[in-house]
């Protein structure tokens, strides 16, 4: 039972890790191009979950087909917020960005709470009863879809950044903004595209999160987003492989560590439960990694 159960937990971790990765890639992109820290990224995930919910409610399409539409809406929201909020304070210091995103968190959470109430919403995925099983291990089809979608996005993202002109221009902007501007790259457009893409990735994460059976409420975004921040710091700023590795590690550690600790406590005859510690694991890893290696695992640039 033990081994099968452990693999089961690994699958849960993989699933949570995919959500963190989708959020973290978007954050990494925005930070890379604009050097802006948007702590309200999780609120984009939350708004996207609501967008998915309402479009699904009114259209009755397969929720997975609704997600691209939600991503488009969120890309527009992202561009709007970049224009009105982040562009005016560019270059005035990191603290200002943190404070501004704090205002955005309050604004978006409570706007949603007023318009759609704080009642939890959920979607019934058409595949919620489909389980792929091998022996005692069960893999819900929804989880498999999320894992595949994440892989597709990662490959697509990598191709986009490496092969297209816009992708190359974005990488140039992130390496040296002034030089990129001198080379005729419209850096402000790159800001816009990076924010749109980042928000759309958060929207995909939000849509998948909701469709796979999680509840939507105005406060659902904060914790995943703050963990995604931990992920990009642990992995090293700007590093895509770092973000993937750290995202998967975190997703798995969050599910495995409480279980292992519980098994350990049981050896000593104690019935302690460690599920309450799940949300703290990201920060324990964060603090340990930063103490040992202040630039993160794959980070090159020191401060």
């Amino acid at each position, binding site marked *: 039972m033990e081994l099968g159960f452990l693999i089961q937990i690994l699958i849960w971790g993989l699933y949570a890790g995919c959500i963190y990765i989708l959020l973290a890639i978007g954050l990494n992109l925005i930070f890379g191009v604009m050097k802006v*820290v948007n*702590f309200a990224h999780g609120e984009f995930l939350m708004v996207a979950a609501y967008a998915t919910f309402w479009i699904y409610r009114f259209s009755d399409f397969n929720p997975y087909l609704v997600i691209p539409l939600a991503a488009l809406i969120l890309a527009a929201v992202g561009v709007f917020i970049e224009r009105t*909020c982040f562009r*005016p*304070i560019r*270059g*005035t*210091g*990191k*603290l*200002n*960005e*943190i*404070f*501004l995103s*704090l*205002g*955005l*968190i*309050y*604004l*978006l*959470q*409570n*706007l949603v*709470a*007023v318009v759609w109430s*704080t009642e939890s919403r959920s979607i019934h995925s058409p595949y919620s009863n489909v389980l792929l099983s091998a022996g005692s291990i069960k893999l819900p089809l929804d989880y498999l879809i999320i894992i595949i979608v994440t892989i597709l996005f990662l490959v697509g993202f990598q191709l986009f950044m490496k092969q297209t002109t816009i992708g190359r221009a974005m990488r140039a902007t992130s390496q040296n903004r002034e030089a990129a501007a001198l080379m005729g790259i419209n850096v402000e457009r790159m800001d816009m595209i990076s924010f749109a893409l980042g928000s759309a990735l958060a929207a995909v994460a939000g849509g998948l999160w909701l469709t796979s059976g999680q509840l939507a409420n105005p406060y659902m975004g*904060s914790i995943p987003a*703050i963990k995604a*921040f*931990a992920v990009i*710091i642990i992995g090293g700023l700007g590093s895509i492989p770092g973000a993937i590795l750290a995202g998967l590690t975190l997703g798995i550690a969050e599910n495995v560590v409480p279980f292992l600790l519980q098994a350990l406590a049981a050896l000593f005859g104690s019935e302690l439960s460690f599920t*309450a*510690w799940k*949300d*703290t694991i*990201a*920060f*324990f890893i*964060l*603090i340990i990694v*930063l*103490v040992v290696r*202040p630039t993160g695992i794959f980070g090159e640039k020191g*401060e």
Partner: protein
Amino acid sequence: MKLPSTTKLPLTQRVKEQGTKTYLGSIAVLVALLLPLLLGINPYLLTVLIILLVFIIYASAWNFLAISGQGSLGHAAFFGIGGYASAILAKSMGLPPLVTMLAGGLFAAGIGILIGLTCVRMREWFLAMVTFGFAVIVHTITAELSWLTGGWDGIPAKRLIPITIPNYILIEYYLVLVIAVLVVAFLYLLMRSKFGLALEAIRENELEAKVMGIDVTRYKLMAFAVSAYFAGIAGALEIHHFGYITPEVYAIDISFLPIIYSISGGLFTIAGPVLGTIVITLLDEGLKSFGWTYGRYILIGLMLILVVILLPKGLVSLPAKIKSRLKSGSAPAHMPK
């Protein structure tokens, strides 16, 4: 975020400015002293005022850390640690809250130095993440250590002034007022001292500060200790006022409030957190009485965004800004980078 430092102004103007500050400060204290006479002894209003004073201490403490360029997103940790340490000491040793409060502050300061040690070399938003995570960890530890902290139910805390004394809430108000005035005055003196100037130098340019011979690590740690100490005192005051403490003192909101207060009032100034706390608390309570449960936070969020973009020096800079705009007739030209 460069501020024109007052030391560059001519001496006469500095003296004048100092005079205006003392003048405004005394008026504020006078109003606070007379307020219960004007409002009558209304327990609800006095409670609002006591919490307002507690948060003035708390926001000023957060702001003091920000002066050194370190913006914490997890000050609720120190607020709560001070509260729990004080409540547990008062319960187990039978000491009066005014004594255990100091111990709670010291305990918070000790933890503050420890977390500061991991933070001193970090860039701003790494520090924000670490402090935020630290508050989440402390929250979980407190909720899980139920033999000591009572878990989610919390523990009772001794009242600041026993309820058996007539007009105890009025006495409590004046007591907290005296403490708040002392703390703000102390932080003001500290800001004007060599220590405060060193912190400002570190914020403006850490490397230059180091070259000038400032021990950056030591000063940053000291800022952490002072800030955590007064945040702990504020936490202890709040829970001894309410008479109980639960892990709710670590709510994420509690970490964010001093930031909102300080920024809307005016970051890095002594009057900023005081003014910001007053304006936002009154706005909040006013809107709450209209039945705006969530709407008030929309307004506060919007205000925070607008202040950061349009009024980066906060409400305290509003009079000067209006004056200069009236004088020149148009907005001051933007400086080229």
